[in-house]
C-alpha cells in the first residue's frame, strides 16, 4: 500500500504538471482539491484517465469521484480494492 501511495504521488505530479510541488509536499491525507493541492475540474478528468490507463479502473459513476479523489489515502484504498 505504501508503494502504491508513493507511485500515485509521482504520477499525479507528472500527469498534472505540478512542477512547483514535490512528493514530500503531498501527505497521504492532504486534500487533493480545494485548500489542499488546489486541483481543478480538468485535473479531476486527468485523474479519471490515469485510473483507467494505469490501473484498468473505469469509474462507472462520476459522483464517486469526489470521494475517491479526495486524498492519496482514498485513491490508494479504492485502487487496491478495484485494480484489474
Amino acid at each position, binding site marked *: 500500500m505504501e508503494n502504491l501511495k508513493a507511485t500515485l504521488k509521482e504520477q499525479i505530479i507528472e500527469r*498534472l*504538471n*505540478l*512542477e*512547483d*510541488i514535490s512528493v514530500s509536499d503531498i501527505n497521504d491525507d492532504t486534500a487533493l482539491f480545494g485548500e489542499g493541492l*488546489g486541483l481543478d475540474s*480538468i*485535473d479531476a*478528468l*486527468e485523474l479519471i*484517465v490515469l485510473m*483507467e*490507463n494505469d490501473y484498468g479502473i473505469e469509474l462507472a459513476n462520476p459522483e464517486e469521484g469526489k470521494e475517491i479523489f479526495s486524498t492519496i489515502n482514498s485513491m490508494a484504498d479504492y485502487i487496491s480494492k478495484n485494480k484489474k
Partner: protein
Amino acid sequence: MNYINSYCHISNSAIKINGTISNSYEAMPIDEVIKAIYLSLDLKYSKFHKMDQLSKIAFLGIELMKQANPEISKYGENDIALLFSNSKSSAATDIKFQESYANGGIPSPSLFVYTLPNILIGEIAIRNKWYGENMFTVSNLFDAKYYAEYANILIKKSAEAVLGGWINVNEDKIEAFFFFVTKKDLKQLNLPLNTETLDKIYKGV
C-alpha cells in the same frame, strides 16, 4: 492618434525589448526557452505549468512587457483590450491531442482545453484580471493594417489601451511579437500606431 509605447520579440535565441536585445542565447528548443524566461522572471504561478506552449509564450510575453513598461499594470480591469493573432492556430497542441488517443488511448482532457488558440487570451485575462474587449484571429501573415485599424477602433470605442500579439509555435520554432498601444506617447518612442510603423517594428527594421 495613438502610440506604440513598448514592444517585445521572443525567438528561440533572443528576447528583444523595444528592438534591443535584452537576453540572447544559443538557439534552444521551445520548452527550454519557456523555462529560461519563467525562471528569469522569478514567477510563482502554478497554473502556468499546465498551459500549452502557445499560452505559455503569450503569458511570458505579457509578463516581459509589464516588466519593461510598468504603466501596463496601472490600467483598470476593463481598460485594456487584447488583440491577438497567428497563422498556425493551435495546430501544435491539436497534434499532441490527436496523438493522445491515436493508439486506443483516452483523449487527454488537459490537452483538449488548449485546442483553441484564443485560450491564451483567457490565461492572460485570468492572470491580470483584465476583462476588456478581446479578439483572436487566424491569418496567413502578420497583418499590420488589421492590427492598426482594429486597435485604433478599440481605443476610440471602448479601451484605454491595447495589448497586441502575434504568436506561432511550429516544429520547435517560436515566433512571438507583442506591442502595447495607448492614447499618449508615454515612453517617447515616437511610434504612432499605423500600418507602416507596426510593420517596421514587427520586422525589426
